[in-house]
């Protein structure tokens, strides 16, 4: 757990961070976001005292961070930064082993831990262990950076735009991996970014900062549906607010009962029915097209043209648009039809509910 109480940073006569109070509970994924110069990085770096605070307190668990010896404090907190900051003269394994080494873990335990972390981040131990940073791809280096931050099993992980320098495709993969690692380890994470999509994807709570002040601190969905003021609204962006909302909703929240062909209810429903094979997998949709004259048309069900319960509604909607249908089959892990999501359902339900 991390708690900031009235945290303030003043350089000369410039107040960079102005009286920020917030709390990230254990196991939460907190994201600090805001335009450049809003004080988000400064706030993060006051937590591990890379920058001393002018006023205010920071609690790490029950300890005031200023009461701990600074190096000891930092060894309890993992830290990953944008340009990674890997040590160019040390191998991957040596980089990951830095903090355990500083904490004087026995060698065998360090080796075990390095292998474990490399496995967790899908880094091939045999191939990469003794490579040097300049021999890694951007994505690999970034994974090593995060693995290094986690090496000594810190209570808290601080991340300052860690995926800022990688290409969009790799960034998405790294975000998915970070989410997975977060679910796996339940670390408390404080993450700085200026990318709202990244924040919405990762955060359990988002703190929006502007000119050093905390404007709103809320769950992502609250931020989207109940913005505190115009700044929040404009920072989120009006243009694709609806889509952003749907990116925080999941198919299982919209899932409806699917009507099978030949069932008694078939005629009373919206006018489309599903055909399934012997194992319960959907094979074909009767009707379900936009225009009335297309109602009788059959649509083959394919892998791309279906939804899973843990898919975001944004993606489900995108598939509907692409295949020009009003409805998608929802399938389970074995591919069996368990329900449907419909355009009517998307439109008919308050997304903020």
């Amino acid at each position, binding site marked *: 757990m991390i708690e900031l109480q009235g945290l303030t940073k003043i350089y000369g006569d410039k107040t960079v961070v102005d009286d920020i109070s917030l709390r990230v509970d254990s196991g939460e994924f907190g994201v600090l976001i805001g335009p450049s110069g809003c004080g988000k990085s400064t706030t993060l770096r006051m937590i*591990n005292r*890379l920058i001393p605070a002018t006023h205010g307190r920071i609690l790490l668990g029950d300890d005031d961070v200023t009461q701990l010896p*600074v*190096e*000891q*404090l*930092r*060894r309890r907190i993992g*830290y990953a*930064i*944008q*340009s*990674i*900051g*890997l*040590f*160019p*003269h*040390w*191998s991957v394994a040596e980089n990951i082993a*830095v*903090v355990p080494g*500083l904490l004087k873990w026995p060698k065998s335990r360090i080796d075990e831990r390095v292998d474990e972390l490399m496995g967790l981040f899908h880094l091939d131990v045999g191939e990469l262990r003794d490579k*040097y*940073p*300049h021999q890694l791809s951007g994505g690999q280096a970034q994974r090593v950076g995060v693995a*290094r*931050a986690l090496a000594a099993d810190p209570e808290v992980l*601080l991340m300052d735009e860690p995926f800022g320098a990688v290409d969009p495709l790799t960034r998405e993969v790294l975000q998915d991996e970070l989410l997975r690692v977060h679910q796996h380890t339940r670390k408390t994470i404080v993450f700085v970014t200026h990318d709202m999509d990244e924040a919405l994807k990762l955060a359990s709570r988002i703190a929006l900062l502007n000119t050093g002040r905390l404007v709103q601190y809320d769950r992502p969905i609250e931020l989207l549906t109940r913005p505190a003021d115009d700044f929040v609204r404009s920072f989120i962006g009006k243009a694709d607010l609806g889509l952003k909302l749907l990116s925080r909703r999941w198919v299982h929240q919209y899932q409806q009962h699917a009507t099978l062909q030949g069932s008694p209810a078939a005629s009373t429903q919206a006018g489309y029915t599903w055909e399934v094979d012997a194992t319960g997998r959907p094979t074909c949709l009767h009707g379900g097209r936009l225009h009335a004259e297309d109602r009788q048309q059959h649509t083959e069900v394919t892998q791309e043209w279906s939804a899973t319960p843990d898919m975001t509604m944004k993606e489900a909607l995108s598939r509907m648009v692409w295949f020009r249908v009003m409805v998608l089959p929802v399938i389970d892990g074995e591919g069996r039809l368990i329900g449907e999501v419909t355009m009517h359902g998307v439109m008919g339900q308050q997304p903020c509910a």
Partner: protein
Amino acid sequence: MSEERAWHPRRAGPFVANRVLLVLLAAALMGVVLLPFAAMAPNRLMSGQGVNVAVALLPWQWLSLAGLAMVLALCTLARPFPSRLARWLTLIIAPLWLLLALYGLGDYAFRTLQDASPAARVSQGAAFWILVFCPVLMIIDAFQRLGSGLAVRGFYTAALVAMVGALFASGIFDGLSIMQEYANNRDTFAAEFLTHLRLVGLALGPALLVGLPLGLLARRSPSARGPLFGVLNFFQTIPSIALFALLVAPLSALGEALPWLKALGVGGIGAAPAIIALIMYSLLPIVRNTYAGFAGVPATTIEAARGMGMTARQILWRVEVPLALPVILSGLRIVTVQAIGLTVVAALIGAGGLGSFIFQGLGQYAIDLVMLGAVPTIALAVVADFLLQILVSLSKPAGTR
């Protein structure tokens, strides 16, 4: 534009594969034909009579030289040798050429002096130097083209130096006037050589002791940087002899005023002003490279180290120093070579060293005595440069090589 002329053979052409080697070979052959290989003088103070290579060398010697030149000429061409083979052949032929030139000169001196007056002198001529330098450049070129690692080059160089050393040890050069000067000055030579090394060492030690912390200071404190580099650059700019000379007066005054200092050897003339001046000259490269080395450590690397909970001392010794070391050692390489050269001038204020032969020789118009000072000085500088270059590459951390 040049792409449009693609039909035109490249100027190096398919015929000549190595124009650098061709130029070196042509220069060597021209030099050998036009310039004297050796010089014969009735005594050490007279200037010598030039002797052409065909006259100086026995037929088998110059015929061998010509034969080796033919093979080298073939090595410049695209055919018959494939390029890799041509380079390795160059690496074999060029040193043979060099050794043969050395042997030939010594042999000529030996043969000539047998029936000449005891005062007669044989010295090396311009063509001899060309026959020494051209093969060395050919070897460098071949290694550059092969892209060989430092280990191969180092081993090769050591072997070549050992062979030349063996020629010296065999006494084949004893007839040469420079060796006669050496023989006449054997004891003083050893003493002056050691003095030279001692002056360099006595200057570099304190310069490092002061310069390394100053470089770190320049890195840590931007406000100190400007004035510090200003002052050090000021020293570096003053011509060596002027700085040596300007220290003479205050030091002699100091020596007069404080007899115990004088007892320690501090006075107007001698080693003290030389060492002080050498230290002043050495500071700038050391401080500059130390600063540059530390400034070259990426800020994010240091930030990461701090964020991970390293202490300032751990960051300095485990992150900054290893990453800055190659640049710092390059600075040491610069000052070592520079100090070896400047110590020559120190002889003018009575500090001794190899420079004393040079200026003594210039005063007496005895060129061979000048050579006895100059050639070892140059050799010392080149060897020090080579050894420190190896040290610099060894100091590069594995991950950054």
